[in-house]
Every structure is written in structure tokens, then in C-alpha cells.
């Protein structure tokens, strides 16, 4: 009886009451309580009753509403954004949105509309965005005009529109964006353009424009005009005579047949004012020094994937160009871009070169004003980088050399660009032999991305000289023995605010490893194999964003909870957390500090087995003695006393009987 009672007592003492709260809603997903809901792909035939009346943003695409009328959405009078993409809508009847005064965006993309009633869009006080993409419209008269006075953008792509001639009563006073992509517009007349009073963004991509009435764009001003995939560019450029355009997109595509660009075709540019032009994927038929003679006023030129192997030297008309994009071409050597033709350049992009790009020496030395240089994804290999290669780039602020072949960096490898503020070397294997300090003179550098650079992290001088470094990414680099020791490469960078040490295969961090990093506000240690003890190294940090996701944390001892409490946001997702009473202090702390915790959906128990996969926030442990426990304990003690008294009595009786 006694051992059984003991077991019973133990069971009472250590029993943990576990309760799991689960929440299942097979219907719409709540993105923001009582405001934002997603009900897509549910095959719904009406607005479900579970949606609150307060709903403001509703994604209702891919459901089934052949007819929408004034009863369909009548309950949701607070709607601001309504997405009805591909709901098989045929009819939009009278007064559908009568009571939706706040409605600002209606998306009807992909509905086979047969008819929209005259008053079907009446109601909203300020309807700003209307999407009628691929709704089968062939005539702009189809769109009910009564309540479009506040409209700012109208999307009419992928319809059967052949004329952009707006009906006379169509209100355009606020209309700024009109999208006519992929229609059948072949001709643009003066009358058409005159009707588009305030429109500053026009998209004609995927319309084969064969003619523009001369003078149609005369003294018109546009922010953005797009004529992507047009067969004959000279038609467009002639038609745009005397217009002022900030950004003109004239690129073509892989699947579009086009004529080779000649100097003659680009002549129209002399008669207009353009700030930025895109000619992606075109072929140039022979380059002459005068090919760009009409580009004199141009600030930005995008020649992405234009099959260039070189640019001839002495190109005329490029003296005021600020930004040049030569990405996805096939230069063999950087000098082949003839940089001397672009003396005012501040931004140069040559990323994704299709051949191995040789940086050569002094190829960019004439670009004294260059601020941004992107040479990523270009198969660049250089055993001794980068002083000869980047000679005279003294104003350079941003340099991107990521995703290249191995680079060898010596001491002061970026001496030629002392004003660098951002340096991206991600996924480029760096050869730096200890104890060299390649970044020595970069006193202004603020951002350094060294992720996946296969660094020798034992070189304590690697980051020497980076006096102003705020953001350092060391993702994917390994440390000796998987541990970040007391003396490490982070010693010289005391000004760090953001440090990323994710996926570094770290097993431990010395308590003193970060002691000089007092300004840190963002520390990412995710995807390592760290245990709870690593938190010791963060005792001097306050108000930090701390990411410890996907580590090997089982138990966080009570003494470390104070350190966690000091931080602003903590992510502990995907850790094998222990949910037994030996971790009760942490679990209690966790549930009291939920507002500090990020990724709580992925923060789950790994043990004991019956709680595996349960969210930490849903676990209820009680590890003290419960009321039932106290009752049984008292009964037990009472019984014990009685037992003692009886046994004492019998011993005494036995003794007296034998005197």
C-alpha cells in the first residue's frame, strides 16, 4: 500500500496539465483581424457569413459569382479594396456598390463580362483604381462612366481594344495611368491623345503600332510611355515629335520579331526630349560613332541584352549621360565598353555578362564621377584585385562584385575607391592570406556583404580599418571548430549595428565574443547549431532584434531570461524546444512576452513526444503542486501521523508487556 501511495504522490507532484488550443477555419484566411481577408480559390457562391462586417480589404478571386448585384456585397459596407479576379462574372447589375462609399479599388480581371449597368459603379465617393484586364472589352463605351471622376488608374490590358478613342463624356480629370497592354491598337491619332488630358503614364506594350498621326504628341508631357515589342521603332520615334518624356520604354522580347536598329531609325529622337530610354533585347545593325547622335539630352540609357560585344570608341552625343546599363551583353574585356565616351557617368551596370569578363586595367579611369558600379554575375576572375582594375574611381560609393569567380585580395585592395560606402562581394570566393587586411582604407564603408565568400575567418585582421561599418553580412562562412572565440575577426568593427552570422555552422559563441559590439541593434544567428548557452554572449545588448531561429536550443535556463527580456524582438522558431517542467521558467516567460516574439507560428515543442509540434504559445504546463495535490499530500501526512501514533503506541505497549 505504501509504495503505491508514494507513486501516487509523485504522480500528483509532477503531473503537468497540458492543454492544446487549436484553431481551424477551412474558409477565408484572416490576414489582419477584422480588416483583411483572403477567400481565394474556395469555389464560393456568395460572401460567407464568417466574414465580419468590418472587412476593408477582401481578396475574393477564383470563386463563382456569375451575377453581382446590390445584395452581393451589401453587408460589407466598409470595403476599401475588392479583388474579384476570375469569378466568372457575366453581369454587374445596377447599384452593386451603392453603399460602398469608401471603396477605392475594384479588380475585375479575367471575368467574361457581358454587360455592366449604367449605375453599376455608382456609390464609392472616390473610386481610384479600376482593373478591367482581360474582360473581353472591345469598345471603350462598355465602361460605365458615371462615377469615374476620381479615377487615377484604369487597366485595360489583354482586351480587344483597337482604338484608344475615349467616349466624349469620359472623365479624365484625375486619370494618370492608363494601361493598354496586349490589345490590338495599330494607330494613334491626335484626337485620341488630346482626350487623355492628365494621363502621364501610358502603356502600349504588346500592341503593334503601325502609325501615329504626325503631331499627335506635340508639346505633350509624359512621365512614362511604353511601346514594348513594337516592330518598327522609327514609327514611334517620328510620332513622338516635340513631346517631353521622362521614361521611354522601347525594348523588345525573346519572342518578338523586330528589325535591327539603325542610326536612321533613331533619328526621331533628335526631335523630342527624353530623359531615360530602354532598348532592351534589340539588335543594332552596325555601330557608327553617330548611332547615338540624337541621344544628347539623355540621362539614362538601358541597353540590357542588346547582343553587344563592344561599343566603338568616340561615340558622339553621350556626354551628359548619367546612367548606363549594359547588363546581359557579351563583352570580353571591360575596356570594350569604351568608357571614355561617357565622361559624366555616375551609374554603370554590367551585370550578368554572358561571357567571362576580364576587368583589364584602367578601363574605367575616365569615369571620374562614377558613384555606382555593378559588375555582378559576370564570371569575373582576378588573382590580384582591385586597384589596377578600378583605378581612378575616387568617387565610387557602391560597388557590387557579387556572384563572380574567385578574387584574390591583397592589403588595401580598394585603395583606389576610398569613398566606398557599400561593397557587395556575396557568393564570390575571396582569397585573402592572413594577416592581410584588404578593406584597410575604407573608412567610410557602411555596408559590407561577405556572405558565402568562403572566408578564412581565423584572420583577425580581415576587417581591420572599417571604422564606420554598420552592416556586416557573414552568412554562410565557417568558423574554426564551429566556435566564435573571445578574440575574433569582429574586434575591429565596434560600430556595427547589424550583424548576420546565419548558416555559419556555429556550435558555440564565447561569452566575450561580442563584448566590443555595443551598438548592435540587429543580430541574426539563425540556421546554426547553437544551444541556449550562446545567449550569455548577448548580456551587454539592449533593444536588439535577435534571430535565433533554426538552432539547437532545447532549454533556456532562468538566468538567461533577463538577457532575452532586454531585447526588442526575438525569433526562436524551428528550435527543438523542451516543453517539460525543467524548462518551465522559459515557457512562462515566453507566454508573458509574446509581443516581443517573432515567428511564434514556427516556435514549437520538440519534447516530450506527446507535445511535439505544439506551438509554445499554446502549451499550458503546471509544474507546482495543484490543489488536488495539496489535498492528497495533507491526507498522506495525516495518515502518516496516525500511523506513527499507532506504531508508537504498539511499541510502548509491547515494551510494557515485556517488562
Amino acid at each position, binding site marked *: 500500500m505504501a509504495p503505491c501511495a508514494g507513486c501516487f504522490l509523485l504522480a500528483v507532484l509532477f503531473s503537468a496539465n497540458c492543454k492544446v488550443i487549436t484553431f*481551424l477555419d*477551412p474558409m477565408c484566411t484572416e490576414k489582419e483581424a477584422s480588416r483583411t481577408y483572403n477567400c481565394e*480559390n*474556395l*469555389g464560393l457562391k456568395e460572401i460567407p457569413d464568417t466574414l465580419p462586417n468590418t472587412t476593408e480589404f477582401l481578396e475574393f*478571386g*477564383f470563386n463563382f459569382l456569375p451575377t453581382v448585384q446590390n445584395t452581393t456585397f451589401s453587408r460589407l459596407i466598409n470595403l476599401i479594396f475588392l479583388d474579384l*479576379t*476570375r469569378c466568372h462574372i457575366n453581369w454587374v447589375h445596377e447599384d452593386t456598390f451603392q453603399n460602398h462609399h469608401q471603396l477605392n479599388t475594384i*479588380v475585375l*480581371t*479575367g471575368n467574361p463580362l457581358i454587360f455592366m449597368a449604367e449605375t453599376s459603379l455608382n456609390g464609392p465617393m472616390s473610386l481610384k483604381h479600376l*482593373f478591367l*484586364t*482581360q474582360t473581353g472589352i472591345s469598345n471603350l463605351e462598355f465602361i460605365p462612366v458615371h462615377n469615374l471622376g476620381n479615377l487615377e488608374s484604369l*487597366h485595360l*490590358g*489583354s482586351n480587344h481594344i483597337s482604338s484608344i478613342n475615349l467616349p466624349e463624356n469620359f472623365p479624365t480629370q484625375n486619370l494618370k495611368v492608363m494601361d493598354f*497592354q*496586349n490589345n490590338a491598337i495599330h494607330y494613334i491619332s491626335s484626337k485620341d491623345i488630346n482626350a487623355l488630358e492628365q494621363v502621364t503614364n501610358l502603356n502600349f*506594350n*504588346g500592341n503593334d503600332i503601325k502609325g501615329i498621326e504626325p503631331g499627335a504628341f506635340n508639346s505633350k508631357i509624359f512621365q512614362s510611355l511604353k511601346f*514594348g*515589342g513594337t516592330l518598327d521603332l522609327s514609327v514611334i520615334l517620328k510620332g513622338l515629335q516635340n513631346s517631353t518624356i521622362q521614361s521611354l520604354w522601347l*525594348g523588345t*522580347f*525573346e*519572342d*518578338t520579331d523586330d528589325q535591327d536598329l539603325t542610326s536612321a531609325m533613331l533619328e526621331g529622337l533628335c526631335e523630342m526630349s527624353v530623359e531615360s530610354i530602354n532598348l*532592351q*533585347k534589340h539588335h543594332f545593325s552596325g555601330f557608327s560613332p553617330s548611332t547615338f547622335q540624337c541621344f544628347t539630352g539623355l540621362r539614362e540609357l*538601358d541597353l*540590357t*541584352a542588346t547582343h553587344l560585344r563592344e561599343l566603338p570608341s568616340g561615340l558622339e552625343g553621350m556626354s551628359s549621360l548619367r546612367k548606363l*546599363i549594359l*547588363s*546581359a551583353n557579351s563583352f570580353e574585356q571591360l575596356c570594350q565598353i569604351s568608357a571614355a565616351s561617357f565622361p559624366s557617368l555616375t551609374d554603370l551596370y554590367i551585370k*550578368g555578362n554572358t561571357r567571362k569578363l576580364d576587368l583589364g586595367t584602367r578601363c574605367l579611369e575616365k569615369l571620374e564621377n562614377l558613384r555606382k558600379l555593378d559588375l555582378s554575375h559576370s564570371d569575373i576572375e582576378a588573382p590580384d584585385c582591385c586597384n589596377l582594375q578600378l583605378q581612378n574611381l575616387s568617387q565610387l560609393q557602391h560597388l557590387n562584385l557579387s556572384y563572380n569567380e574567385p578574387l584574390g585580395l591583397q592589403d588595401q585592395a580598394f585603395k583606389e575607391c576610398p569613398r566606398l560606402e557599400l561593397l557587395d562581394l556575396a557568393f564570390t570566393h575571396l582569397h585573402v592570406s592572413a594577416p592581410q587586411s584588404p578593406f584597410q582604407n575604407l573608412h567610410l564603408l557602411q555596408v559590407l556583404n561577405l556572405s558565402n565568400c568562403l572566408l578564412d575567418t581565423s584572420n583577425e585582421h580581415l576587417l581591420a580599418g572599417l571604422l564606420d561599418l554598420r552592416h556586416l553580412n557573414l552568412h554562410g562562412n565557417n568558423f574554426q571548430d564551429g566556435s566564435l572565440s573571445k578574440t575574433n575577426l569582429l574586434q575591429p568593427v565596434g560600430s556595427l549595428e547589424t550583424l548576420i552570422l546565419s548558416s555559419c555552422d556555429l556550435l558555440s559563441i564565447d561569452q566575450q565574443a561580442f563584448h566590443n559590439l555595443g551598438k548592435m541593434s540587429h543580430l541574426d544567428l539563425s540556421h546554426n547549431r547553437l544551444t541556449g548557452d550562446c545567449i550569455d554572449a548577448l548580456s551587454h545588448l539592449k533593444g536588439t532584434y535577435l534571430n535565433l531561429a533554426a538552432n539547437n536550443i532545447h532549454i533556456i535556463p532562468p538566468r538567461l531570461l533577463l538577457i532575452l527580456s532586454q531585447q526588442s524582438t526575438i525569433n526562436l522558431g524551428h528550435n527543438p524546444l523542451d516543453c517539460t517542467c525543467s524548462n518551465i521558467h522559459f515557457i512562462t516567460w515566453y507566454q508573458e512576452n509574446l509581443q516581443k516574439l517573432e515567428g511564434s507560428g514556427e516556435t514549437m515543442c520538440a519534447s516530450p513526444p506527446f507535445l511535439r509540434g505544439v506551438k509554445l504559445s499554446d502549451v499550458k504546463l503546471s509544474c507546482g503542486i495543484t490543489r488536488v495535490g495539496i489535498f492528497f499530500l495533507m491526507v498522506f501526512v495525516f495518515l502518516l501521523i496516525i500511523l506513527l501514533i499507532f506504531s508508537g503506541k504498539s511499541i510502548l505497549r509491547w515494551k510494557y508487556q515485556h517488562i
Partner: protein
Amino acid sequence: MKGFAAAFLVWALVSPQGGGETWPAHTACRDGNLEVLYQSCDPLQDFGFSADQCSKQLKPNLNIRFGIVLREDIEELFLDVALFAKGSSILKFSYPVCEVDLPKFSFCGRKKGEQIYYAGPVNNPGFEIPVGEYQVLLELYNRDHSTVACANATVTCS
């Protein structure tokens, strides 16, 4: 055991519509010694695909036909390809189809809900397919990593 069965039933009932449904296998091309079959692995929908020529000696810049309803915007679109033979992985690569600074194809930038029909080149390199049976997993996804299309293909070359 009963509890397990009940749990399974509940799971089956609450799992999203279309979950568990499989789409029919289609023939992308069949010719003499090469056959390509595919099946959509997007639980929400099927799609149509065919290649204009089908030979062991794959020509560069193949023409394809492709029809699908977009469930996501595709201003940015990426393709992941994983090739397996006899259950082991041979090749994996990722290819950007549409990027903000380089929309390679005319369909780049189309909107969620649009129906797309593409007939044109795919800019592939030419190569010879060695004899054997291969499994290919193709996934098209956008910037949020939301699935645009997913295909399980079987290539049989004899």
C-alpha cells in the same frame, strides 16, 4: 486506432479543396524514340504544354506552346528545374524568366487572373539526350515564391 482514423477523416475534410486531387498526365510530345509526358503538380489547376519537335537530338531555341490561367502576378517569374534518373538527382538549376530589369518574354508583367497562351521560342541550348528514362520536376514561381505552375514530367528516350 479509431482515434487515428477519426483524425485522418477530419484532416481529409478540412484540407484545402483540390488537395489530393491529381491531374491527368498529358503528352507534351511523342516522336520515334522520344516521349515526354507531364502532369501538373499544382493542386489548384492543370495547364497545357506542347513542344513543336521531339527528337533525341534536341535543337536549340525550341518552340513551345503553353496555356495557363495565372494565379499570381508575374512581373517576376523564375523557373526551377530538377532532373532525376533512377531516383537520384542529376541536375538542378534555376533560371529567371521575367525580372523587373529584364523582362525576357512578352508575357512578363501579366496580371493575376489573366489567361496566357504562349507560342514561341524558349531559348534553350541544343543537346543530345542519352538513352534512358528521366524524371523532371519543373516549377514556375514569382517573387513571393507563390507557385505559378508546377509539372512532374517523364522523359523516355530509347
